[in-house]
C-alpha cells in the first residue's frame, strides 16, 4: 500500500531511518517507517493531525526513544531542532541577543568566551531575520512573529548540517512566513539538510522540492509534485483517524 518513491539521485544520506516505530502507550504514532533524507535535501513532512509528523521529527532529533528501529545521522552532533511550541519561558528576564547567542553553545560550551566574532555573528543573524535593534529588549516584549524570527536567528548561529523545523510558520503572518522561507531557501543553498513539518500544501508545492506524506505509515516519499497528488492526500486523511483502544499486537515480525 505504501507508495515509496525514493529521491532520484542516490546521494549520500544525511539521515537514514530504518523500520522506525514510535509508540505511545504501545499505540504506534509512527509505524514501520524507513527511508533516507539526502544530504542537502529540502523536505516537507505532510499529513493530517495525528499522523505522527512531530513524533517522527522528535525521533530524528534523538529526543524520543523509538519502540523499534533506528535513526542514523551522518553527522550526529551537527543537528538543530525547533519544536512546534518551544517550551521557552518567555517571562524569563533575558534579552533577545542573549537568546540568540545560545546558538553558539556547541562552540563555547559551559566556559568558552563569546568573542568579538561570535558577537558580530549574533548581530548579523538578528539583522538577517529583520530584528535589527531588538537585541537588548527582553524576550517577553516580542510578538509571536518576532519571537519566531529570533529563534530562526538562533538556528542560524547553530550552524547545523541538519535542521529540523516543526510547524515553523504556524501562528505567523504572511510577511514573516515569507522572510523565514527565504532563510530556509538560503540554508538549502548552503547545502544544509532541512526537514520541516508543514500544513500548508500550496506552500510545500512552491518551496519544498521533496515531501514525505504520512499517516503513521509513509504514503509517499519523493518529489513534492508526485507525493502531493490529490488521491494520495485523500488517502492520508482517511487513514490518520484510526485508533483502537483494543488494537491487536502488531503482526510485523521483529527486526524486519
Amino acid at each position, binding site marked *: 500500500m505504501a507508495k515509496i518513491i525514493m529521491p532520484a539521485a542516490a546521494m549520500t544520506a544525511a539521515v537514514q531511518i530504518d523500520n522506525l516505530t514510535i509508540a505511545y502507550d504501545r499505540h504506534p504514532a509512527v509505524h514501520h517507517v524507513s527511508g533516507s533524507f539526502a544530504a542537502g535535501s529540502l523536505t516537507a513532512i505532510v499529513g493530517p493531525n495525528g499522523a505522527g509528523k512531530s513524533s517522527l521529527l522528535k525521533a530524528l532529533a534523538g529526543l524520543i526513544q523509538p519502540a523499534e528501529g533506528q535513526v542514523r545521522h551522518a553527522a550526529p552532533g551537527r543537528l538543530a531542532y525547533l*519544536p512546534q511550541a518551544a517550551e521557552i*519561558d518567555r517571562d524569563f528576564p533575558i534579552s533577545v541577543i542573549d*537568546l540568540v547567542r*545560545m546558538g553558539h*553553545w556547541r562552540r563555547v560550551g559551559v566556559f568558552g568566551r563569546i568573542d568579538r566574532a561570535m558577537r558580530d555573528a549574533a548581530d548579523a543573524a538578528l539583522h538577517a531575520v529583520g530584528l535589527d535593534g531588538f537585541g537588548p529588549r527582553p524576550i517577553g516584549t516580542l510578538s509571536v512573529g518576532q519571537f519566531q524570527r529570533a529563534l530562526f536567528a538562533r538556528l542560524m548561529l547553530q550552524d547545523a548540517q541538519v535542521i529540523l523545523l516543526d510547524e515553523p510558520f504556524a501562528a505567523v503572518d504572511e510577511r514573516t512566513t515569507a522572510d523565514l522561507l527565504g532563510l530556509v531557501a538560503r540554508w538549502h543553498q548552503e547545502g544544509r539538510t532541512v526537514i520541516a513539518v508543514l500544513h500548508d500544501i500550496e506552500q510545500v508545492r512552491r518551496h519544498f522540492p521533496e515531501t514525505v506524506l504520512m499517516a503513521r505509515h509513509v504514503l509517499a516519499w519523493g518529489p513534492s509534485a508526485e507525493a502531493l497528488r490529490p488521491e494520495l492526500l485523500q488517502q492520508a486523511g482517511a487513514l490518520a483517524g484510526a485508533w483502537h483502544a483494543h488494537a491487536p499486537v502488531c503482526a510485523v515480525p521483529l527486526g524486519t
Partner: protein
Amino acid sequence: MMDLYALVLAPFADFAFMRRALIACLALSLGCGPVGVLLVLRRMSLMGDAMAHSVLPGAAVGFLVAGLSIWAMSLGGLIAGLAVALLSGFVSRTTSLREDASFAGFYLISLSLGVLIVSTRGSNVDLLHVLFGSILAVDDASLMLVAGIASASLAALAVIWRPLIIECVDPGFMRAVGGVGGAVHATFLMLVVLNLVAGFQALGTLMAVGLMMLPAAAVRFWARELGGMIALAIAMAFGSGLLGLLLSFHFDLPSGPAIVLTAGGFYLLSIIFGRHGGLIRHVFPARHLEA
C-alpha cells in the same frame, strides 16, 4: 543621635552574639538571594518549602546520633534533602510524573519519617529549639559552616551559570543540543538544599526558606533584569536580617520569625508599591506612550 546609636549600633557593638548573627545573615543572604530568585523564575517557589520539610528527618537523626552537634545535624539534613531532591529529579526525568508531583511525594515521605523518628524517641525541647533555630546562638563552628556554604554556592553558581540560564529559559534547546541539562538541574537542586541547611541552624528548617523566597518574590516588582533582581534580593534579605535582629533584640522576640516577618513586610510593601505591576500601578496606571 545617642538614641540612634543605642537603637542600631549599640546591640552589635556591645554583644558578640549579635555580631555573629549579623554576619550569619549576610552569608545567608549571599547564598539564598540568587538561589531564591532562580527558584521563583523557574516557577518552583513552593519547592523551597518542600525541601525545607524534607531536611527535617536528617537533622533529627543527626541530633539523635550526636546530640546538639551542628555538623551532625547539618550532614543529616543535607543527606535527607539531597536524597529527596535527586530522587524526585530522577523520577520526573525518567517517568511521566511531573516534577512538582514527584517532589510532593518524596518530601511527604521524608517529613513523615522525620516526625516518626522524633516522636518515637520522645519529644525533646532541645530538638524543637533546633528545628526552629536560634540565630542568637550561632557559634564559631556554625558561622564557618554558613560562610562556607555561601562561598561554595556562589562559586558553584558561577560555574554552572550559562547552562543553568539556558536550562531555565529553554530546557528543550538544552536537550536538543545534547547539553548537560540534567546535571545542571541536579547541581542547582543541591544548592537549594545546601542553602536551606545553612539557614536551619540560624533560623530553623522551616524559617530558612522564608529568607530565600520572600525577597526573591518581592524583587520581581522592582527589577527587570536578572542581575538587578539578584543584587536586590541579596540586599533585601540582608536588610531583613539586620532589621529583624534589632526588632528581636529590642522587643525580646524570637529571632527567626522576627527576621522572616521583616522580609514578609518588604514583600507586602513591594506588592503594594512595586514599580513593575504593583497594586498602586495597577489602580493608577501611567498613561500610554505614542509608540
